[in-house]
């Protein structure tokens, strides 16, 4: 995977495996962003729509509901862009695929894939202990579902670091 900056455009080059993972991530986000907060699973609700800050601010039930609705609208407004970004990843297989985005779109992309990391960690109970696991230690492996979740979280972290570096260059 490679991210280069060409003037005001970020060019993300991925191989087939990376492309497939990223496509699945973006498709999952398109689906999840379209779901009303109350209809999401409890883990996702807790991490995407945590009301801890509303409670500390002593917001009323109505104010909290409005706050959640505004947050949901902000996420839902990203769906169009996610569909644009996933389109080149759905193209016929070649040796690799290229995703281009304007630098000004990078923050939205970062926020979206970070949302996926948070969602995956919450759904698979990935916490500090799992994030600190030593990958070179075979006895430290998690059950397959959680191991895959950890792999996705780390893969997206790598992508985020590359985008942040390229955007700052």
């Amino acid at each position, binding site marked *: 995977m490679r991210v280069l900056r060409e003037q005001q455009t970020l060019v993300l080059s991925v191989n087939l495996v990376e492309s497939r993972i990223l496509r699945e991530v973006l498709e999952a986000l398109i689906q999840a962003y379209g779901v009303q907060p109350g209809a999401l699973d409890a883990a996702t609700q807790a991490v995407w729509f945590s009301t801890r*800050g509303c409670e500390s*601010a002593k917001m009323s039930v109505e104010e909290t509901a409005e706050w959640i609705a505004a947050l949901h609208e*902000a996420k839902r407004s990203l769906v169009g862009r996610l569909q644009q970004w996933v389109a080149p990843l759905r193209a016929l297989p070649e040796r690799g695929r290229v995703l281009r985005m304007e630098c000004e779109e990078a923050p939205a992309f970062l*926020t979206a894939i*970070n*949302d996926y*990391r*948070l969602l995956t960690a919450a759904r698979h109970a990935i916490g*500090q202990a799992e*994030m600190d696991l030593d990958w070179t230690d075979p006895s430290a492996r998690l059950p397959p579902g959680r191991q895959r979740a950890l792999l996705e979280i780390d893969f997206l972290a790598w992508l985020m670091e590359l985008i942040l570096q390229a955007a700052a260059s």
Partner: protein
Amino acid sequence: MNTETLPVDKPEEKVKEAFARNWNVIVWNDPINLMSYVVFVFMRVLGFNKEKASKHMREVHEQGRSLVATETRERAELYHQQIQAHGLMVTIEQSS
């Protein structure tokens, strides 16, 4: 005859309260958000330069939380919404 006095709104107090910069915005540590991403969010949402953003990120990472702003309630609520929208754990509370 009921002589109970009804509460009277005090507009000057409401105005004073609205402009009082006594709401703390606090960002909390979590194991998933990347340090570089936290710096990015502080720069983007709070307008910090890289040095200040990095200092607050380190506070979050090492002390578990960082007080990133003390503002009017309206501005603190805006930061609360924007920081949470970026996936960071944030609370606001009135300072004593």
